[in-house]
């Protein structure tokens, strides 16, 4: 996302010109999202899943529920693991290989939002204290990149988790026995991340890849259904004033319920 070359400079100039008219390159208003489409539960081999389109941004979320040993300091608690993979089909410049800085930030920001909201009851994921717990893996798999991955993945994660089930173990003579039963995971909150991007003097929502390329700064604000903040994350090589931060929080507050409603709707 470097601004170093001439093409990018021209792009920046053009985007700024259009923004100054109160519109976007694709005709959207500054706070308008692209169409968000979520299909949940379509992967039969995952315990939960969601396919997300946000404009041309396209990704899969897979939830798998496995087992493992708990951490030493929390012997009664299951574990939530979040991972993002930037596949090489998603963008011509993305190479196959281990996770890069951007995919780590993506997974971390969504993960921190889920954790702050205490979305899962980790005690419910306990099977045998100190020995065996459920591990819930949330994997993001980016298929086509056109900006705003955090918001798209955040929404997809909630959709996939709302449909996710965990297998039921019975304890017989102190040993865990896997049964055929499955029960839904208890989802206690629905935190929704909204990313606000500043380009020149304008603040916009749901940036495209081109807009992210020329952005000055981004602030992601994750909100729960009570309007409380769960996570914030500033990135990009510029600063923000206190007033700008307030503006961003307000923009996120205004948009999150709309996105949350679409997520919930998609799972019904």
């Amino acid at each position, binding site marked *: 996302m470097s601004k170093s070359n001439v093409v990018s400079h021209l792009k920046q100039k053009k985007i700024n010109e259009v923004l100054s008219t109160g519109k976007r390159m694709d005709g959207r208003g500054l706070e308008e999202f692209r169409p968000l489409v979520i299909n949940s539960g379509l992967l039969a081999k995952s315990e939960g899943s969601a396919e997300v389109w946000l404009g041309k941004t396209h990704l899969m979320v897979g939830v798998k529920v496995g087992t493992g040993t708990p951490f030493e300091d929390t012997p009664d608690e299951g574990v939530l693991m979040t991972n993002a993979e930037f596949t*090489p089909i998603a963008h011509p410049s993305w190479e196959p290989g281990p996770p890069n800085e951007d995919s780590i930030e993506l997974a971390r920001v969504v993960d921190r939002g889920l954790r702050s909201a205490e979305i899962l009851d980790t005690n419910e994921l306990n099977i045998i204290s100190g020995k065996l717990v459920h591990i819930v893996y949330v994997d993001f798999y980016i298929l086509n990149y056109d900006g705003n991955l955090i918001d798209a993945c955040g929404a997809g994660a909630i959709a996939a988790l709302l449909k996710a089930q965990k297998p039921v173990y019975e304890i017989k003579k102190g040993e865990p026995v896997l049964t055929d039963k499955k029960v839904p995971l208890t989802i206690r909150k629905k935190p929704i991340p909204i990313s606000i991007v500043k380009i020149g003097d304008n603040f916009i929502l749901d940036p495209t890849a081109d807009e992210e390329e020329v952005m000055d700064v981004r602030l992601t604000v994750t909100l729960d259904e009570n309007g409380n903040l769960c996570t914030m994350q500033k990135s990009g090589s510029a600063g923000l004033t206190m007033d700008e931060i307030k503006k961003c929080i307000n923009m996120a507050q205004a948009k999150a319920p709309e996105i949350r409603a679409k997520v919930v709707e998609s799972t019904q």
Partner: protein
Amino acid sequence: MSKRTSKKKQWTRVDGRAFNQLRDVKIECGVLPNADGSAYIEMGRNKIICGVFGPREMHPKHMAKPNEAVLKCRYHMAPFSVDPRRSPAPSRRDQEITMVMRSALEPAVFLERYPRAGIDVYVEVLQADGGTRCASINAASVALVDAGIPMKDLVSACATGKIDDKVILDLGDYEDKKGQSDLPVAYMPKLDKITLLQMDGIMTTKEVEEAIKLGIEGCKQIYEIQREALKKKYGIDKTKSEETAPQEPVAEEKKEEKQDE
């Protein structure tokens, strides 16, 4: 094994298919806006997506070949594609499939037309249900055409196998695991050449021949589905001929323009 003859009549497949019947196959092409070419395939419960990039500058440069393009492939499985969840790091099996996939596709591509270039074929398995390598080749073949790469032929692939001493077509996941043997085939119908052939399990020479022939029949059916997918995107053949494989001159022009940019 002695029950072979006696059981023949009442023998049925777990999903009710005939011995020579494919699973449902659905192919869609042009599904990835950022790729030069792409295709999505569902074959049974397999869900696989393929993106093609190129011909473009070879990376790393020292791997480029002076007289032809390099076809780089990568077969990769999503962590949630199988049960239990798998690590995203490539396994030895993944690397082997990458190799055989490349070897199955290379014979169909006019690599010599793009010296020094690289063509990247990336396959991502979103859900695995037995026969992922064949499904991947089917998607990749369509994605290559969609990318405008000039091709000598489409490559169509499906597996055959032996269960209860019976040779059957296109094993699903459940059959795969209890099967006696597994024999994936890739085939170029116009050129009548086999470009992928692997086998595991015990088979007589006769069974192998039977299985390959059955596989070729399956490939021919898939070939039609691949052509339909391309027709759906690119419209009815101007030539009204049987050929749905790429119109090479057009494809080449498209590519040359691209390179002039």
